[in-house]
C-alpha cells in the first residue's frame, strides 16, 4: 500500500512539474521569461545627437507579441495617417504612399534573448520596410515590472538612437486601453 501511495505521489508530482514546464522551459526571472507576452506601445522617442523627436507622433499605436516558443511580431503606426481616398492599399497616391510608409513599420520573425548582454536578438523573416527582411536586429532590453524598453541603435529612419517603451497588456484589455495617457 505504501509503495502504491509513493508511486502515485511520484506520478502526481511529475504531472505537476510537466504542467509547470508547459509554460516554457526558461528560468524563472530570466529576461526571456519576462519578455513573453503581448505589449502595447507607450512611447517611441528618437534621439539624434540630443535632439529628441517622436517619429510616429505623440500618440503612436503599436503592438509587439513575443511568444514562449521564440516568435515575434511587431506593428507600429502613426495614429493620424490619412486614409487612402481610393480605399485600396494598392492604389494610393504618391503622397498617401509616402505618408503610410514613413509612418508605419511591421515585421515578424524569430527571437532569442542574450541574457548576459540583456539583448533581444531578432531574426526578421518579413518586414514592410524591405531593407529589414532577412536581417538580424538587436535591441537592448530594459525591463521593470510591466514596462519594457527596446533600445535600438540602428533605427529604420537612419541615424540616431531610438527608445521604444512598451507596457504589458493585461488579460481582457485592448492594447489601446492598456496604454497610459501621455
Amino acid at each position, binding site marked *: 500500500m505504501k509503495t502504491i501511495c509513493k508511486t502515485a505521489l511520484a506520478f502526481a508530482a511529475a504531472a505537476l512539474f510537466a504542467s509547470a514546464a508547459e509554460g516554457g522551459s526558461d528560468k524563472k526571472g530570466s529576461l526571456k521569461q519576462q519578455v513573453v507576452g503581448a505589449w502595447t506601445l507607450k512611447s517611441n522617442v528618437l534621439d539624434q545627437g540630443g535632439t529628441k523627436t517622436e517619429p510616429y507622433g505623440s500618440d503612436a499605436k503599436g503592438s509587439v507579441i513575443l511568444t514562449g516558443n521564440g516568435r515575434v*511580431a511587431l506593428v507600429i503606426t502613426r495614429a493620424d495617417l490619412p486614409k487612402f481616398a481610393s480605399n485600396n492599399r494598392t492604389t494610393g497616391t504618391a503622397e498617401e504612399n509616402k505618408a503610410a510608409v514613413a509612418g508605419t513599420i511591421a515585421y*515578424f520573425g524569430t527571437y532569442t534573448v542574450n541574457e548576459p548582454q540583456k539583448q533581444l536578438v531578432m531574426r526578421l523573416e518579413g518586414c514592410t520596410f524591405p531593407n529589414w527582411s532577412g536581417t538580424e536586429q538587436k535591441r537592448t532590453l530594459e525591463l521593470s515590472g510591466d514596462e519594457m524598453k527596446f533600445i535600438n541603435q540602428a533605427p529604420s*529612419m537612419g541615424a540616431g538612437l531610438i527608445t521604444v517603451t512598451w507596457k504589458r497588456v493585461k488579460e481582457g484589455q485592448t492594447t489601446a486601453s492598456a496604454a497610459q495617457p501621455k
Partner: protein
Amino acid sequence: MTTIIRVSLAALAALTLVAFAAAAGNQKSGSLKQGLIGTWTMVSDTVDQNGTKVEPFGPSPLGSMTVTSDGHFSLVITDPNVPKFASGSRTGGTAEENKTAMVGGIGYFGTYTVSEADKTVHLRIEASTFPNWRGVDQKRIATLSGDDLSWTNPTPSIGAGNATLVWKRAKPTSRQTAQK
C-alpha cells in the same frame, strides 16, 4: 497515518487537475477559438475577383499571424520581392519604392472574438500599416483542420474580391518556414 496519506493524495490530485485545466486555458476543448491560438505561417494568399485569381503579395508571400489566448492578434504579410530602398532609410523612399512597399506589405493588430456557431472571427483592428484599416471591425471566416487554417476575408485591402489566406501552424522549434 493512512488517513494523512489519503488526504495528501487527494489534495495533490486536485492540485494536479487544477494545474492541467489552467494550462489548457479556459476555452472549451475542440473550440475554434482554442484551435486558433498560436502562431501561423503563411502558405498562400489568393484573391478571387469574379473568377480571376490574383496573388496580392506575389507567388511566395511571407506572412505570420499570432493569436493569443487573451484575445489579441497580430498579422504581418510581405512580398519578399519588394526591392530594398536605395537610401537605406524607411522615410527616404522614392515614389516608386514607397509604392512597391505599400503594395507588397501589410501589418495590423488588435483584439478578436470568435463566433463558434458560424466559424467567424471578429477582428477589432486597432492600427494598420494601411491607414484605412485603423480602428475598424472586420470579419474572417476560419476553417481549421489540424495544423492547416483557411482564413477568408470578404473585404480585402486591394478592393474587390474574396481573399483566401492559407496558414500552417508554426512549429515550436522550426526557425522558418512552412512547406509550400
